[in-house]
């Protein structure tokens, strides 16, 4: 079972309906709910943070335009709808790799929400840098071997003279430690 997301299924359903009814604040909520997810998905698929930022805007605009027109037939499927739209636009971008004309730009207030995401991203990177400095050298090495070198826990265990279980535990603990620090600091701002 999935753990609940920050926004419940009921709230997402109402979001889709409110956008269809022309509620501008619902559009801002939608941007807050999904822009980070679309950004991460686009970075992972394109390996390009700048292109990912542009894609976030394109995807959100396409989703909002569709919701305004009532094109989402099942309001319970908002998250899969956003994911599907993001996947299609990212794949189009990867296929063409050319300078395609951007979609209609986001309205000013929504674009500001996206700029806030950009600041969030920069702050997150600064906090990650701090958090990494606080980790022990071996924990940092485990993360480096996992996320940069792409080694599996068994391989890391063999290289460091540890057991796979210990490597898994230390990796999970280190990521959690960094995630907690980011959450605490970002929630204060």
């Amino acid at each position, binding site marked *: *079972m*999935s*753990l*609940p*997301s*920050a926004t419940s299924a009921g709230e997402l359903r109402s979001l889709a309906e409110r956008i269809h009814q022309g509620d501008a604040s619902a559009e801002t909520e939608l941007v807050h709910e*999904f822009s*980070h*997810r679309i950004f*991460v*998905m686009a*970075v*992972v698929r*394109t*390996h*390009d943070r700048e*292109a990912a930022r542009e894609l976030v805007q394109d995807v959100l605009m396409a989703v909002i335009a569709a919701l305004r027109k009532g094109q989402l037939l099942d309001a319970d499927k908002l*998250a*899969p709808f*956003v*994911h599907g739209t993001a*996947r299609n636009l990212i794949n189009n971008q*990867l296929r063409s*790799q050319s300078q395609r004309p951007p979609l209609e730009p986001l309205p000013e207030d929504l674009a500001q929400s996206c700029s806030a995401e950009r600041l969030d991203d920069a702050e*997150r*990177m600064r906090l*990650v*840098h701090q958090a*990494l400095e606080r980790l022990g*050298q*071996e924990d*940092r*090495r485990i*993360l*480096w*071997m*996992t*996320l*940069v*070198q*792409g*080694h*599996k*826990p068994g*391989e890391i265990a063999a*290289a*460091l*003279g540890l057991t796979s279980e210990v490597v898994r535990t230390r990796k*999970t603990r280190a*990521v*959690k430690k*960094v*995630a907690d620090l*980011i*959450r605490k600091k970002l929630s204060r701002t």
Partner: protein
Amino acid sequence: MNCQEVEERDILEGYLLDRLTEPEREEFERHYFECGTCFSQLQTGLALQTELRRQPAMPARARGASLLRTWSWAPAFAAIVILLSAGIWWYSARNRQSSQQVAAPPASPNMPVQGQSPSAAPSLEELARVEPPPYSPVVLRGAEDESQETFHKAMQFYVKEDYAKAIPGVRAAAKANPQSASFNFYLGACYLLTGQTDSAIVSFRKTVFLGDPAYSESAHFYLAKAYLRKKEVARAKDELQKTVQSHGGLQSEAAGILRQLGN
């Protein structure tokens, strides 16, 4: 897909390293679009990966590991010291006994030959380590085609050691011009340097297949490195032998690795 599966199957790392199949990737994306916990961990993982890639490479061994290795030698070291002492005692005792009888050559004490240290064969991880293949931009006279332009732009990231950022452009160039050995070779290099070993193998194989003499030797060599990373020693040896047979600049390095692999 659920949170437990994500944890048990290392899905998060696989996603960040481009190792999932397309259906797995989609399934995980659908999951984290609705799961706050997994998304938070993914976001942290991506930020960590980006930050760690910016930092200089970690030392070859963690302190704990080197300490562990040092202490694991302690019993062997103690045995050598005991043998050495026993040898010296036996040698001097024997000399004392026979000094006035026969002027025989001293017997070799039963201890390691001086200068012959315990075998310190490098591990597969060490042999699999790669230096980025050098790249110097070629200035062509006349107009470049679109794929060359895309490639050269992407390779500016490569020169700055930002291999992940070079990938989209190099991949696009290789897709637009699949007959180019250089595009496929450097795409393989970018994949290898970002830990995407399987994709690297595919690109290096394509390079070999294209048969461009300017890239064949290097493609065999880096293919061998990729196989070493995957611990596929037989395949790695095969590629190293092909590198040696090319009689190019990587011949002696390939031969050295083959010797260390016990060929």
